[in-house]
């Protein structure tokens, strides 16, 4: 499948439906949604609106939690993470654009636990691609893609979201 031909907005609407079903099945009524900068926030904004969640959308910038800091360094402009003061016993839906190695999600989980002890965390990813390096999986996935190691998928936004494949050495 050519990622550029994927209708991202329609995929997210479909994800919202399935997310609603998962929440109903687990009996979770007022989850807290958190998007990971940058692409994950764009996806989360749409899911958050579709699910009409009461709590405002939380955002996470995991730059300070990366495990490759000594190799890639810190970008000077890291956006502040916004999570509610108290996340204890809350059910959290973590949203990212691409699930690749799993390292971003690991970092996000670490950051969330620095804010408190949630009751549960589930993961929604627009794209789930090959190349996992950690035992992490998503609960709701938009599309699954099999890509070569040097192929990277990129979400463009914030208006009219679309996907493209780039050949790059940076890790997603």
């Amino acid at each position, binding site marked *: 499948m050519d990622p550029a031909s994927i209708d991202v907005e329609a995929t997210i609407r479909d994800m919202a439906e399935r997310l609603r079903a998962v929440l109903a099945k687990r009996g979770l009524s007022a989850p807290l949604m958190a998007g990971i900068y940058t692409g994950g926030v764009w996806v989360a904004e749409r899911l958050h609106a579709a699910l009409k969640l009461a709590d405002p959308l939380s955002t996470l910038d995991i730059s300070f939690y990366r495990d490759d800091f*000594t190799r890639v360094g810190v970008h*000077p402009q*890291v956006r*502040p993470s916004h999570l509610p003061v108290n996340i204890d016993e809350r059910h959290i839906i973590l949203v990212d654009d691409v699930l690749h190695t799993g390292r971003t999600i690991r970092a996000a989980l*670490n950051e969330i636990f620095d804010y408190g002890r949630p009751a549960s965390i589930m993961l929604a990813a627009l794209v789930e691609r090959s190349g996992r390096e950690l035992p992490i999986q998503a609960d709701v996935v938009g599309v699954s893609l099999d890509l070569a190691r040097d192929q990277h998928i990129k979400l463009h936004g914030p208006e009219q979201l679309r996907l493209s494949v780039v050949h790059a050495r940076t890790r997603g």
Partner: protein
Amino acid sequence: MDKHNIQLDENGRLRHFLTIEGLKRELLVELLDTAESLSSVAEQTVKKVPLLRGKTVVNLFFESSTRTRTTFELAAKRLSADVLNINVNVSAATKGETLLDTLRNLEAMNCDMFIVRHSESGAAHFVARHAAPHVSVINAGDGRHAHPTQAMLDMFTIRRHKGTFHNLTVAIVGDVLHSRVARSQIQALSTLGVDEIRVIGPRTLIPQEAETLGVRVFHDLREGLRDVDVIIMLRLQRERMHGAFLPSEHEYFQLYGLTERKLELARPDAIVMHPGPINRGVEIDSAVADGPRSVILQQVTHGIAMRMAIISRTMQHSVPAVS
């Protein structure tokens, strides 16, 4: 090796942080941006990020200091580093040798960073020149030479309040002659491109070559404060009061102490800064120090974020890349 290049690695990135001199504007802006990002850590429930987990930072203080040492300690701890505090009182005669020996011992303990404060100018450079390749060195104040982390936290405070450095007039008031803080501030302010830097003080406390630093010199406080955006008061080092430099504390306060009346000459939105510790009633009146224009305690808060930024930036290059 050239004293000013020693702080950069082959890619032009920070390896040590010893002086503002010779650093480019982009690099200073990058530090300010990083500090801005790291300032949100203080608002988390767990005030810590795991950036420097497993690294050991040594506060190597040959000169006493409370604020600088504690903010460095907190900065390193909030980056998850392990911190060792060493206060060394050493006689001048044995200093050179002892310093090297101390260094070798700490290196043998696999420490990754030395934060050095010393009463002698050039001490941090000396440590940087002799430290093992993986070790980064930060100058926490050396003699009359430099106090670059203080200058950067002051720049951070100015940017937070004024948004930019252009079109600003900044006045530095007091004992400029003995002040390493003032020297670093002047370098930072001119690198960041402020419109005008003024130094204000009695003739005995302004270095004779001051004008060559690109500053305007005033000996009359009222004249110098007119229309300034930022006022930086320097601590009058009381040990100098009885020498030939000054007649008396009382007279100094009359002439150069910042009072609310004198503050009225500055712009209405001018901010008042002081690196601390303040001498109330000597260089600054309590009403000003505790007043609405004072940002002195914010400087302390900003000092932690700025030092986190400097520690993490320099540390990125202290470790050879592992593939």
